[in-house]
């Protein structure tokens, strides 16, 4: 997925001279996760910019670059470190267009690695997407595979709306099925692991049906897409699994059709539960599919605590927790 993200930058830096990237360690070094490797050498220090360690500065400056007609792609090294820039996102980036009646806007993309499963403890594991989906005026994306990552990032860079683009770091180098005891696998054998060269886009308002099924619908995104697939198999059910991809705006149509068909729905994410993004999904499905539901909608999420270092796999919604959730949901007569 790292190569896919690098390639999306490369394609857009090449196609559009107004695209610039900035962030900590992204230039000469190519990023701590290497998502911008070689790009400064190729496009120069004025287009791939090493930034001071000031997230509020990076985001504020990106807004200014955007107001001046550039298309900034800002990297925040870890989602856990985005908060010094929060005021710039909530009060400025998201509302420039609205408050100026459309005269000003800034098409900033903020990319940031999120999520756990790498023993990063409470400051390198957070999934804060729900904080951002709650803001009116920014779009929020979380990717789950290399093909989408590249196509969605290109769409995001081309979009005239600000976008928070989450990249689950646990799946940078390969899918993760939620069983920490198994050896890591690479993207090579995954159907969406292969990334075409050159330009293509994935739409910013369409969920993806990862697999179709009859017994229940699992709505999820990010790393848990892979965990859900493995869990459905382990539970021996025919699950329809939906990767939301763009959390805001939400593709309600795809959710409605699926749950109306299966009659059962489970929502799963890594983030904490209380007021998490899953709550929005549950409310939406409840309203859209109420008369087709055969069981209460269930949620499997991280617990409502900070992300602990020692209890990584007790905290993370691992495969077995999803299997439990599926079984309970299927037991409801």
């Amino acid at each position: 997925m790292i190569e896919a993200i690098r390639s999306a930058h490369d394609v857009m830096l090449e196609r559009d001279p107004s695209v610039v990237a900035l962030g900590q360690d992204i230039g000469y070094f190519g990023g701590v996760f290497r998502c911008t490797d070689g790009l400064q050498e190729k496009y120069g220090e004025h287009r791939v910019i090493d930034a001071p360690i000031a997230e509020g500065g990076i985001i504020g400056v990106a807004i200014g670059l955007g107001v001046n007609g550039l298309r900034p792609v800002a990297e925040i090294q870890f989602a856990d470190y985005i908060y010094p820039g929060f005021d710039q996102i909530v009060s400025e980036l998201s509302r420039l267009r609205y408050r100026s009646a459309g005269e000003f806007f800034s098409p900033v993309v903020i990319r940031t690695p999120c999520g756990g499963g790498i023993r990063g403890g409470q400051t390198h594991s957070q999934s804060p997407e729900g904080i951002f989906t709650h803001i009116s005026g920014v779009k929020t994306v979380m990717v789950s595979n290399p093909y989408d990552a590249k196509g969605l990032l290109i769409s995001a860079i081309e979009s005239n709306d600000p976008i928070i683009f989450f990249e689950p770091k646990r799946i940078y180098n390969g899918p993760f099925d939620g069983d920490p005891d198994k050896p890591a696998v690479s993207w090579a054998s995954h159907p969406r692991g292969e990334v075409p060269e050159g330009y293509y886009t994935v739409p910013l308002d369409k969920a993806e049906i990862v697999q179709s099924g009859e017994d229940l619908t699992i709505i999820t995104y990010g790393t848990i897409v892979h965990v859900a697939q493995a869990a459905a198999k382990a539970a021996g059910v025919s699950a329809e699994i939906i990767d939301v991809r763009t959390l805001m705006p939400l593709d309600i149509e795809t959710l409605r059709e699926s749950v109306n068909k299966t009659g059962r729905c489970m929502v799963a994410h890594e983030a904490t539960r209380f007021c998490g993004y899953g709550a929005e999904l549950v409310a939406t499905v409840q309203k859209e599919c109420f008369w087709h539901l055969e069981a209460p909608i269930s949620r499997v999420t991280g617990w409502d605590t900070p992300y602990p270092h020692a209890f990584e796999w007790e905290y993370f919604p691992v495969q077995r927790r999803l299997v439990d959730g599926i079984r309970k949901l299927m037991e409801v007569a």
Partner: protein
Amino acid sequence: MSKQPYLHIPRPTARPGEAPDFSYLNLSPAGAVERPPIDARAGEIEYLALGLVRVLDDDHVAQGPWDPNLDKDTLVRALRLMVLTRAYDDRMQRMQRQGKITFYMQALGEEAVSIGQGLAFEDGDMMFPAYRNQGLYIMRDTGLVEMMCQCLSNSRDMCKGRQMPIFYQNAKKNLFTISGNLATQYPHAVGWAMGAAIKGEPNIAASWVGDGSTAEADFHYALTFAAVYNAPVILNVTNNQWAISTFQGFAGGDRRPFAARGLGLGMPGIRVDGNDLLAVYAATRWAADRARNQGGPTLIELVTYRGGAHSTSDDPSRYRPKDEWSSFPLGDPVDRLKQHLVKLGHWSEEEQTSLEEEMKATVSEAWKEAVSYGTLTEPPFLDVSLMFEDVFAEMPDHLARQREKLLRMRGERS
């Protein structure tokens, strides 16, 4: 108008494969910088922020007005603590490589910062350290075993498994809990110091950040509040030249020293040779005495070099010359203090060798004990229900229910 881009892009003086070049450092000779009285007016001592306070000269002799005249016992204690810090780091770095701990960060080359400064404070002074200040935890007797248990997230972990390795704390010894979020501790120190002043108490606070972290807004908030309220606080910048892959120029260090950041606010700054334990001690003591006597805050920049990788996740050979550290003109703090002691006739190479062996053995001993309390993968483990504690003073119902659910699911499986 030219159509060429024309931003200034900071560049380090040398990249991999090039010859190290520290000509940018602007060094003063040992003993050259004047030492003002502690009640000097900020406007009259701006030179302290621009020069470089040094005591030890190239022949390892103490020079000039900043010589703190420490006695032999104190000097030997400082050396022992620095050697211990280095031995601890070395062991923990290797244990990370062997997969015993998940992560580690060394203070290699910067040991005089924590040890030299730590010696200048009173026990009641409150420390708000950064992640490379393990020396402060060591010198305030946190205990190597306790520190190792934190890194191991084992059954004795002071953080109860909640933090990654190296994020220590020690409330009893006035050492704050370390944060992974850079520079956040800086305003905390100022607030603590303001609290001491509000309560009329004599203790002062101190905090540390790296050169790169001075770009964060929290750094600037802290300076503003400290200067506005004349808070009894010492704010320190450990300028080890690098912030992961970006050199200190990306925080503006190649324009004016970090020590000068407070001058616009009327806050004195001292730029000091961070590898010269005597100078580090003397500058910190000066600032502490000033703060304790209601003279207000001081910003101290400690010029040093990050001898190792940023962390165990980093590979510095990608962005800086391999031999940069060995060319660093301020040398190695451990070696310099040792040489000074030898010069004074207090120490010998044999004593140094046996000290290093002694510290290595001390660390080995501690490691053996620490792992007997478990590792991340070997029992005894922490009780998993601890995950839900300390989110709040008292556990709300929803967390109690989540805890029950987790325990039930684990019970069903075993």
